[in-house]
């Protein structure tokens, strides 16, 4: 298990798939992080009005408002301009990572993931961001 202090983390997970939310949420909360969950971009944006996460795990394919659109809108909010946003997506074909990073996301984690690499990738992303 990765040796990281996650107790100071507050994480917003935006994903419409309950089982995917469940895995990420369990791993993060098990390690002491605070997790809030939104089922789409609209809900996520609403949540961000009163919740300032350490970072956001954002699925890309969602109903109502997808991850791309939510990402664009979050980046327009001054107070959230420096909040890392990591794409957590099952779009894992060649070119998908490049597309995500070119759009300006701070990290990319493909589903399915292994817990170790999931936490490592988040850690690496936060480290690079700070």
């Amino acid at each position, binding site marked *: 298990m990765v040796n990281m202090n996650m107790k100071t983390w507050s994480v917003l997970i935006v994903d419409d798939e309950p089982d995917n939310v469940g895995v990420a949420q369990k791993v993060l909360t098990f390690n002491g992080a605070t997790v809030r969950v939104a089922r789409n971009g609209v809900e996520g944006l609403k949540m961000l009005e009163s919740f300032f996460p350490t970072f956001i795990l954002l699925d890309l394919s969602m109903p109502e408002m997808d991850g791309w659109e939510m990402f664009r809108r979050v980046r327009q909010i001054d107070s959230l301009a420096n909040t890392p946003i990591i794409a957590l997506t*099952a779009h894992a*074909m060649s070119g998908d990572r490049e597309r995500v990073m070119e759009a300006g996301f701070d990290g990319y984690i493909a589903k399915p993931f292994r817990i170790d690499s999931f936490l490592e990738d988040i850690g690496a992303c936060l480290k690079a961001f700070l």
Partner: protein
Amino acid sequence: MNELEHLFNLSIDMLAIVDANGVFLRVNPAWERVLGHKVEDIEGQPFMRFVYEEDRELTQATALRIVVEKEEAVRFQNRYISKDGSIRWLSWNATADHNIGSIYCVARDITHAKMTEVQLMLRNSAIEASPFSISIADVGLPDMPLIYTNPAFERMTGYSVTEVTGKNCRFLQGDDREQPGVLALRTAIREERPITVVLRNYRKDGEMFYNELSLAPIHDDRGMLTHYVGISNDITLRVLADEKIQQQNQDLILANYNLANARQEALEAAIQIAQQNDQLKLTNLALGKARKEAENATRLKSQFLATMSHELRTPLNAIIGYTEIHLAGMTGELTGEQRDYQARVLANADHLLQLINDVLDISKIEAGRLEIVNKPFNVALWLEEVLDQTQGLAEEKKLGYTSALDQRMPPVIVGDAARLKQVAINLLSNAIKFTDSGTIRLQIRKHGHEAWKLIVEDTGIGIPSHMQETIFEEFRQVDSSSRRKQGGTGLGLAIVRKLALMMGGTIRVQSQMSKGSTFTVILPLDEPLHHYPEKDAGER
């Protein structure tokens, strides 16, 4: 009456006695028959009174020759006026008795002969003056020679009457005998009927002319053929004009025909072009449609692949995630059996993920959606990354693992680093998978001047020679039991070979059962023309 008196009265000829003053002393009854005047109306009258005015001078002179010059038996002709005003030609024989001063005359009415003569002379003059050539041939003489030709004949042919008289007219044809006109002419002559023909004739100077000849038979009063009369006209100008017109007509007809042909051809060509245009348009439409359909199909295919990839990964994420959560003890400690089973779930989930990745790769390659993106990359860094991702596997099986980079290799080469990595890792994973003890060797070697080799060597179970070709086909492994034992999708080598081919390379395998296998990928060596910054190396 005495004898002489009888004869005087019976005479057919006109008898008269004229005195020295030119007065009729006595005339016989023949005068009355010829001139219509009664004998008693003539006797006692001066003869000059009955002489036609134009002939009076001549008659006076003749009378003087008889009376004054005392010529004997003077013959002459003059014209008298008859009672009805008509003119009679009279032929005279006169003599004078100078002793008593009387003139004795005998006159014969030659009006008929005279008129005939005049008529003949006129006809002759007319023939001579005729603008048409007139000739007469005598049937009674051998070879039917010409006996007369008029001046027009000479003008037309150049031959004078003396030159042609006595010759058959065929000399005008020269050597040009076999003419339709000549044949028709011969037939007409044989059948004694009139004919009009056109002949090619030749002038005395040799010049050809077209002779329109009308020939007619002349019969005597007993109906016997005696002569032929021919009337000819030089119609050369007309014939030439006709020929010219005919030629022009033919030219016109030909020109019209050609024009019509050309128009028809142009029309047909235009129709053909229009048809071809239509065909082309249809073909273009069909092609456009086919291309759109193909593009659509490709788009749908890659969309399908992307969706499949996404939809298969999503539940796997839950399976792998929750299993790991159990194994990590986040839900409390597991029993040994629980841990064992969860590990198996995880291993199978991993296998399933690999299978999905491979199937999607194969599908992408076959859908033509997999692109090779060549960029410069640092070979040493690339090799390091490959080792990083495979060393763990070898360590797990406690296998030796060595690598070698040929020093002759350029530090930076151009290629698709990610796909090359996929090839290398695939081959290495296989090698590790099918090797239980020994060493895995990875080598990068320069091969000639324009190629390089990626060599993966193992000391594993080996591949029987009859399988060494088929292992590169989809879903082929040496045997199904090994797949169950070793895992793997059976797609790895197929993907490797397809990728190698797409990158312009080849792959081959050498293997001995129980000794090991060596996979060699030979790839074109492409060095960058410019120096690229380090950060490009080994990245995609």
